[in-house]
């Protein structure tokens, strides 16, 4: 499949605009990035992936530094070519694509569990890995002990307090 062909297939259907970037890995295998301006267009891309007999390999989420915005990247495969679809959400919701591509099932459930981003319309509400006693979006909230300890020495809090005492 040619990436240009796929781009032409989604071009007229994406309503709110997007950026299309072609990339290659270290061994010249082609891949592409579709960066959506509006997260609601994710279903359009998912339908095109399905039409090309593709699958969702996995999805990645992360919280943008210093913002209350999450970035979600779906990694699709069509006959050996990776297509990454990137979107952003500022209200902790995305439109689930599992009903279009069942291969996205666990990936979307994990995003809900780890980042508290709700995939609206996902058929499965159960927890995947974490116990129910642990809050949703735990990766947004908790910091590890090592980070906390480093955090103390990273800042000047302790140093300033010692200086204040000394003066």
């Amino acid at each position: 499949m040619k990436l240009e062909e796929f781009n032409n297939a989604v071009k007229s259907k994406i309503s709110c605009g997007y950026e299309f970037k072609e990339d290659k890995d270290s061994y010249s295998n082609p891949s592409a990035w579709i960066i959506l301006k509006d997260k609601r267009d994710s279903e359009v891309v998912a339908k095109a992936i399905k039409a090309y007999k593709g699958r969702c390999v996995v999805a990645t989420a992360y919280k943008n530094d210093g913002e209350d915005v999450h970035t979600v990247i779906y990694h699709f495969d069509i006959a050996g070519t990776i297509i990454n679809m990137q979107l952003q959400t500022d209200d902790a919701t995305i439109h689930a694509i599992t009903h279009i591509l069942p291969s996205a099932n666990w990936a979307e459930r994990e995003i809900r569990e780890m980042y508290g981003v709700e995939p609206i319309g996902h058929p499965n509400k159960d927890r995947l890995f974490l116990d129910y006693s642990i809050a949703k979006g735990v990766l947004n909230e908790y910091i590890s002990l090592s980070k906390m300890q480093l955090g103390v020495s990273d800042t000047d809090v302790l140093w300033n307090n010692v200086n204040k005492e000394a003066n």
Partner: protein
Amino acid sequence: MTQTQKITIGPFNPELEESVYFKLEADENRVVTHVEIINGFIHRGMESLVTKKNFMQNLILTERVCSLCSNNHPFTYALAVEKIAGIKVPLRAEALRVIADEVKRVASDLFNLSMLTHLAHHHELMRDTMNTREHMQDLKEIIWGNRMDMSANQLTGTKYDLDEKKIELIIDTLDRVEPKLRDLQERYENDEIFREKTVGVGVLPYEDAIEIGVTGPVARGSGINNDVRVMAPYSLYAYRKELQPKVTLREEGDVHARAMARFGDILEAVRIIRDVVADMPEGDTYVEKRPHIPAGEAVVRTEAPRGELIYYLKTDGSQKPVRMRWKVPTFTNWEALKVMILGDKVDNVTMILNSIDPCISCTER
């Protein structure tokens, strides 16, 4: 009147290699009518942990995601870092990476097959499979110094090299192992006890396999070839097309088909190792020990023994990843279990589970 039985397996059970919890419902004929699988017993928060460690430390941490495919994690992670850093790995290092990976594949797949024969209560076949695997374990111990974690990879290349003596040892080992493997392959294909327990059991039809997005021997057992070494070749597979495996595809989609697809992988791995050591490229084994990792993003894949392994890495120019995400084959193969188990006998459940060669430590991270 239909009587429903509720059966639980796990989370800890002698027939399970790792912890997982099955809640099954079965009718009076012991046929499974409902499946619920509960995960999370081995979740370690590793994706969070890797963002607290530097790039060198993560090479060690990724090797400990899992034991059976431990080599694939640092290998794929290194590919992601090298893509961001724009580093071209020396050809000799690419060859060394492929050798380590294929040795690991043989040992991993043979372990799964011996567990399968164990569950089929065919202990003679299990013993012979394990004994054959021992040669590969010994080889790993002699060359890489460890029977599981080989520590073969480093950023920009490999930590180990092969001299003439070690290459001779590899060839000697393969000479001893290959006839045993061919004999085992014939027995797995035709042995009546093994066939009785595996043929027609845990069927995953082609259409379901496509929809769920399974990979590796599970996909190949249902007639789908999405082997990354063929579809998006990397490392030495990209430079030498003749190294790409001739994959074994089976149409049956049952436990037996998956076992035989795995056997195809094992024999191709032996052929690949022979081809690589017969024509080792000269040169360095790495570029630089501590490369600078600029800001960037990479999505890379390799073919682990169980199927496609994908890594996403995002960096910001500091010493640690901003985000690192990986997905192992079992993550998607797991959903296929429900299709395989529903309508089959309760007695076959652990056998069906084993046939996807589940790696729960990898899946839950």
